[in-house]
């Protein structure tokens, strides 16, 4: 069959761009990196009780310890969940408020570039240090307890929230300000009627999104003594109370999922407006 193929087509076939080598090279590099990565991550098998632990935790989730679930005291699940949520609420609110000046000072359309760069470096610094490390530092200042969690989250939240605020600020529609100028508004009036309405929805939306993250984060801060459900969970894991671990995890999953759903609903409404 191929003898009858006309020359045009054969010529075109030869003109096919050849990037096979490039692809093989990239693939080889990726595979090499992954192999290098797995060299020291050796599977040492499951611990003696590993399988039992795994089964017991899953059993615990499916069949939680009712005594812990409905204990209204300070060691019961309801109070611990309330405490965890309280940490996340305050951490988010304070963080979101602190992020406002920081993000204005880091927006290139508001302040000169060098100033913006300094504040951007600050934001990146906050973002790079893991929240657990922040908590380890703050726990020396405030002492252990949920208050430490609040302070930690307030600081940590500034990083991500500012980053998203900045995007909103830099996308400000300046046409509105121009038209307010034309109406003869002063600076305060311009901010009140031109800037705040534009930014409010996205700021609130960002804060709610961050609340989701903080809620999840607050469940682990307890590991270093910053309050919330993290410490009792860690303790239960350490002492092998698998049923209790199961009930903590079950509640944690439910709370996180419920709040994720609620925050999605609110953010969708903020994005589309009430209808």
């Amino acid at each position, binding site marked *: 069959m191929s003898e009858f193929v006309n020359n045009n087509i054969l010529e075109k076939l030869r003109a096919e761009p050849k990037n096979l080598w490039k692809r093989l090279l990239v693939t080889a590099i990726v595979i090499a*990196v*992954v192999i*290098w*990565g*797995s060299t*020291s*991550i*050796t*599977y*040492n*098998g*499951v*611990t003696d009780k*590993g*399988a039992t*632990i*795994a089964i017991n*935790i899953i059993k615990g989730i499916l069949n939680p310890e009712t005594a812990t679930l409905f204990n209204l005291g300070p060691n019961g699940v309801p109070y611990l969940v*309330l*405490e965890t*949520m*309280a*940490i996340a*609420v*305050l951490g988010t*609110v304070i963080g979101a408020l602190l992020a406002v000046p920081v993000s204005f000072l880091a927006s290139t359309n508001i302040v000169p570039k060098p100033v913006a760069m300094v504040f951007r470096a600050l934001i*990146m*610094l906050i973002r*790079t*240090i*893991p929240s*657990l*490390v922040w908590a*380890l*530092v703050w726990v*020396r*200042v*405030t*002492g252990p*307890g*949920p*208050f430490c*969690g*609040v*302070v930690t989250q307030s600081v940590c939240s500034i990083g991500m929230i500012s980053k998203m605020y900045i995007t909103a600020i830099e996308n400000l529609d300046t046409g509105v300000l121009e038209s307010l100028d034309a109406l003869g508004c002063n600076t305060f009036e311009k901010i009140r009627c031109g800037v705040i309405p534009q930014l409010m929805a996205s700021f609130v939306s960002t804060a709610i999104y961050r609340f989701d993250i903080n809620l*999840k*984060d607050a*469940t*682990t801060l307890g*590991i*270093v003594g910053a*309050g919330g459900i993290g410490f009792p969970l*860690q303790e239960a*894991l350490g002492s092998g109370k698998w049923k209790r671990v199961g009930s903590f*995890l079950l509640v*944690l*999953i439910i709370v*996180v*999922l419920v709040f*994720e759903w609620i925050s999605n609903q609110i953010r969708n409404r903020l994005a589309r407006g009430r209808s």
Partner: protein
Amino acid sequence: MAKKNRTPLFDRIFKPEHIVLDNGHTVDRPKSRTPLILVAFLIIVFISMQTTNFNLPRLISRIGQFPVILGQIFTPNLHYFDKVIPLLIETMKMSIVGTVVGCIIGLPLAILASSNINKNKPTLLICRFILSILRSIPTLIYATVFALIFNLGAFAGTAAIAIFTLSIVAKMLYEAIETIDMGPFEAMQSFGATTLQSFWTACMPQILPQYFDNCLYCFEMNVRASSILGYVGAGGLGILIRERTGYRQYHDLGTILLTLFVVVWAIDQLNNWIRSKLS
């Protein structure tokens, strides 16, 4: 439909203001919801402050400690680098392998969780449910549990990262898959391809850039996250963080954080370079 058009509960309790214009036209102004939201918000904040023993005076009286610690962190002990490097490499290895494994497993799960590809409702819902649950548990808790199940060390951390990565990669990916142009897929079906063949040939080229982008994003996030997993015994830099803060050696902590900062910055640059190459 009828349900949607019903007056919201709020407007039935707080009746809209009835305004009659001079020309006789009328308009209903619904009462603002802002005061109600504000009151609820303040109550929540108040309860939260009670629950967390919010104590600003204590913070102010002891804030002096903070600059001291921060000062020590910002004067890192450069001799400590020798100790940091091996564990930094372990952290990197954990993130690389965890990210790759998570991204690879995440792909088929994302396909199963896309309502436009998987027409089988039960598997779709089960898949999404499992992904939601996996996503709701923080990496650090995975690491703690895995450190108990497997032995202490990097394997537990890698497994924790892999599970967390797959849960978010799959979510981001199925959201992307659901927005793609299904025309090519339909065309493939029309000339006799199976669902899998159609997806691979018609949809993969559309989501591939997004997929790589998500993988890079996860990698960046995982490097940060994996640096603390050692705190619960799951390998990497966290072991040092725990040890040094335990001894209050904040100069050494500064060294660890400085290295982490440099590495995260470098990965950020690398990712940006790869992204520009991909597009």
